[in-house]
């Protein structure tokens, strides 16, 4: 018989491997609410042990925006991709720039994105981003025409292995026009 703690850990391990989506500490704790009465602290501790145990293995336990998930480790990923014939989806620069603007300047309207990029944003890009559930409409800018305001979602953060928007790469600082610069 495994000890109570070992079993809690085992169950969480199996849950995470079978869930097919990240599980939050709250949700895991809720699944134990009736008989077991495991506390969030206990769940957190089990997760920490699992995280350690899976270090240096083929998969790793990662915390992302919506919870914890097992994912293929970066060292094994290129081998694992051989399982499928499909190539990973590639995203155009136009899409990535639009996404970056929404991520860093949220909430932002389409017109504001167009002003910074200097070109029109195609409807298909916005549609694709909404379809992937990477962005959503969070409201309307209080200007004539009431344009939609876009923001990124937790699913976007999950996809890019981030826990929150603060983990996005930092923006490069702009040089000031009035200071004498000596290039870079």
């Amino acid at each position, binding site marked *: 018989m495994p000890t109570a703690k070992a079993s809690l850990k085992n169950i969480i391990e199996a849950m995470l491997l079978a869930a097919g989506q990240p599980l939050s500490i709250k949700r895991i704790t809720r699944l134990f609410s009736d008989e077991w009465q495991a506390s969030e602290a206990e769940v957190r501790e089990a997760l920490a042990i699992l995280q350690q145990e899976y270090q240096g293995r083929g998969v790793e336990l990662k915390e992302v925006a919506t919870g914890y*998930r097992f*994912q*293929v480790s970066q060292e094994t990923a290129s081998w694992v991709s051989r399982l499928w014939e499909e190539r990973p989806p590639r995203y155009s620069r136009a899409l990535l720039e639009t996404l970056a*603007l929404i991520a*860093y300047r949220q909430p932002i309207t389409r017109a504001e994105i167009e002003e910074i990029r200097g070109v029109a944003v195609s409807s298909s890009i916005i549609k694709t981003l909404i379809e992937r559930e990477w962005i959503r409409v969070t409201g309307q800018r209080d200007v004539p025409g009431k344009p939609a305001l876009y923001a990124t979602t937790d699913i976007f953060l999950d996809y890019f292995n*981030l826990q929150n928007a603060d983990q996005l790469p930092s*923006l490069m600082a702009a040089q000031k026009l009035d200071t004498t610069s000596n290039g870079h």
Partner: protein
Amino acid sequence: MSSLVATAPAESLLAKVNGEPVVSLPKGLFIPPDALEVFLETFEGPLDLLLYLIRSHNLDILNIPIAEVTRQYMKYVALMEAIDLTLAADYLVMAAMLAEIKSRMLLPPTSQSEAQDETDPRAELVRRLQAYERYKKAAEALDQIPRMERDTFEVKIDPPPLQQERQHPQVELESILLAFREVVQRAAHTTHHTIEREVLSVGERMKAILALVTPHSFTAFSELFQQGEGRGGLIVTLLAILELHKEQLIELVQVEPYEVIHVKGSA
């Protein structure tokens, strides 16, 4: 000021621009001509093209040699037109902005403007270029982050056999009908918009007019209007002419009131 134009590396005729043969590509364009179209299509718009010109020539973004950059920019725009790349109106608007900055920099500073207005005519352009570059770089960084389906993959083993009754979401027939109606309406809507854009775009018409007029000869004003386009077409053409005139890309000449108006491209 050092010239950004390469000194005739290639002798073969590459394209005709405004009737003049182009024998050399702008510097930095060391690519086979058949890859030209692909290369030009990689620009994400006028700001991207300008940034490329500035960065590839190691120019100081805070002290842009505007005359040279404008000349280079127009060369690329002409190339794009020459190989029939659909040129967005945004490129022409930027051309007009560059021309305006150029002319403002040529103006001798008046005492009044010296006193209260020390803004460089390039300031707004620099601000926009910097803002765009910041997010262009951010997009590149975003593309580097390890992401699902490329650098890592979902792990998913089969659910335990104990649970036979998998719970499925409930669906009402009504919601399928509504989803269908929405998709049909949206499809109709987008088609409608595309048609409207293509027929009545001022930007497109500006481009068409610029292709028609030359700096060397006069074209009759009335020739710019096409028969059978209806009132909408007339208005768009008129707006395009006024816009081009405002941006000083064309000149309008009328000898006497009620005489024929002539149009020619700005030199």
